[in-house]
């Protein structure tokens, strides 16, 4: 138990520190690296909760795909960090005060948190005991039945994101070569191959 507690605090602290570093690091590449660190530690928290599947998805998808993509983008764009930071110090005092006030207020709110005895009764879907059922099976049981609506809605959101990305960035340039399968299939030897009689020794 004590190990779990220690692990929880370790992961949590590293996650928060890494998150702070993401926004405060001077070099955007470092930011992305801290982001990856935060993701890893979140995955650790999931493991502690017994949600190994989510932990693995976290690592594979976020670290493996998203964060790496970020890294590419950041390196390709060559963002001028100094420009972005212009005015940061100028607004820091005021922004800092407001942020601090908000933070303290939220701490007060969180301080009032109690798990009322009835809460567990109201849980829409109680977490199954990990030993009874595997992670993936538990998810599979509900994701296409009880939560099919949410799942599909999320799917459509991703579709929109995809459409958006294409709409905003895709351009058909002059001179780009596209693979047209029908053209390839329909291509016949007569169109492309010219058979020439070459008399020996004379060249073309």
């Amino acid at each position: 138990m004590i190990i779990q507690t220690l692990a929880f605090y370790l992961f949590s602290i590293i996650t928060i520190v890494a998150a702070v570093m993401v926004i405060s690091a001077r070099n955007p590449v470092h930011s992305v690296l801290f982001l990856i660190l935060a993701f890893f530690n979140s995955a650790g928290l999931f493991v502690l909760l017994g949600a190994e599947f989510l932990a693995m998805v976290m690592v594979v998808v976020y670290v493996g795909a998203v964060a790496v993509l970020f890294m590419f983008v950041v390196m390709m764009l060559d963002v001028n960090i100094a420009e972005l930071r212009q005015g940061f110090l100028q607004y820091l005092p005021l922004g800092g005060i407001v942020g601090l006030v908000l933070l303290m207020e939220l701490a007060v709110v969180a301080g009032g948190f109690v798990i009322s005895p009835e809460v567990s009764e109201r849980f829409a879907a109680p977490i199954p005991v990990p030993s009874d059922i595997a992670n993936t099976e538990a998810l599979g049981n509900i994701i296409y039945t009880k939560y099919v609506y949410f799942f599909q809605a999320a799917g459509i959101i991703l579709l929109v994101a995809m459409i958006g990305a294409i709409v905003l960035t895709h351009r058909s340039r002059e001179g780009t070569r596209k693979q047209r399968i029908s053209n390839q299939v329909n291509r016949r030897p007569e169109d492309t191959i010219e058979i020439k009689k070459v008399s020996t020794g004379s060249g073309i």
Partner: protein
Amino acid sequence: MSLAPFPALLPALPEIFLAIAAMILLMIGVYSRQEQSARIVSYASIVVLIITLILVGIITDGRTLTFGGAFVSDTFGLFIKTLVLIASSATILISRDYLIMHGINRFEFPVLIVLATLGMLMMVSANDLISLYLGLELQSLSLYVMAAFQRDSTRSAEAGLKYFVLGALASGLLLYGLTLVYGFSGTTNFDSLTKLFTSEHVDVPIGITIGIVFIVSGLAFKVSAVPFHMWTPDVYEGAPTPVTAFFAIAPKIAAMGLFIRIMTGPFGQLAGEWQQIIIFISIASMILGAFAAINQRNIKRLMAYSSIGHMGYALIGMAVAGQLGDTATRADGIYGMLIYLAIYLFMNLGTFTCILLMKRNSRMVENIEDLAGLSKTNPAMAAALTIFMFSMAGIPPLAGFVGKLYIFQSAIRAELFGLAIIGVLASVVGAFYYLRIVKVMYFDKPEEEFDQPVSLEMNGVIIVTGAVTLFLILFPGPLLMGAAAASAALFPG
């Protein structure tokens, strides 16, 4: 552990149809010939939206839940969805000329509108914090893309980026509020929340209250209420005009629908907590909408402030619904609000169609001065725009007056006199800039004529919206009945 039963799909049939249709439209767009695709998909989208409208009408029968209580279909939803679907299909209709002119006539545009509309329908039907959020995000994401649709224009791109970043921030606030509510109550379902707050907990945990504050803030961003309105003028100005038209109408109405549903539903009994915020943002929106618009020269910016003001007026109805006590009075507030939103739809649709007609030598013009002397060069359009402006200013006997009348009446009945008085004063100030447009059109020296001819669709939209605005006072029956049924659905018993 056995599998949970598969939920009933019928109550969500319109949404399911719309989702599938959107994907089919996408396929049609991709596989039809390039020059034809946009036209085909546009008209097909309108047909799809109309079929959805019919389906919504057929399906809605009392209050039905599905997807484990995450989705609700009721008369209130019917009312809002009808408005949203009308707005979306009309927007597609009036946007075609603009898109063709600016070389962005792509089939993705109607598809995005359809998907945004789907998000709106989901928002309106949300009966769970998660479905609320998913619907909202689906809608928002489509809108972000649309704001930047004219990607070669820096203004459009800037608008899209601004909207996206601020929208993400607002989503964050909203999500934080949702988690607070979930954390302190243990449920995301609206019905459970309603039960929870009506029965046992007399003293509401502070986490719920602050959660509501965050949720209200997030939703206030979506309806562009002060102080979460800052994005509105910039985005309205920068986005392509048809997109602005769409922004001003459908998402506002849908977000208001969602706002009403969550505030009167799960948090209905906590009105004591949130009424003050609503009163505050309502007053702030009315005042800012009235004052800030005065100095605007760009008509799209002006319309942005105008819509901020209008949302302020509509929120009066919500404040009335937050007056704990007599259920009839609370329903009255929503009733007024729904009437206001319906009228808002027609006025804005007409106005934006007129704005879309402001083109000279195949270029759009957006300044108020460009309307100078319109009464001489194009008397019909000047007359139509005058009707819309007078209506927005709330001058009897036009529709806008009816809307304001019901809203202010409900406020007075709920004894929220301060709100009603500020509302009336703000509309007096607001009348100034609406009437200034009329003055420019009728009394200033004529500018060059706008391009002719006007397409049949746009003429049709202007005539229909103009007629509704002008004659609503004569035949208010259907609207009043619909709004009454819709508001009654929220306050059973």
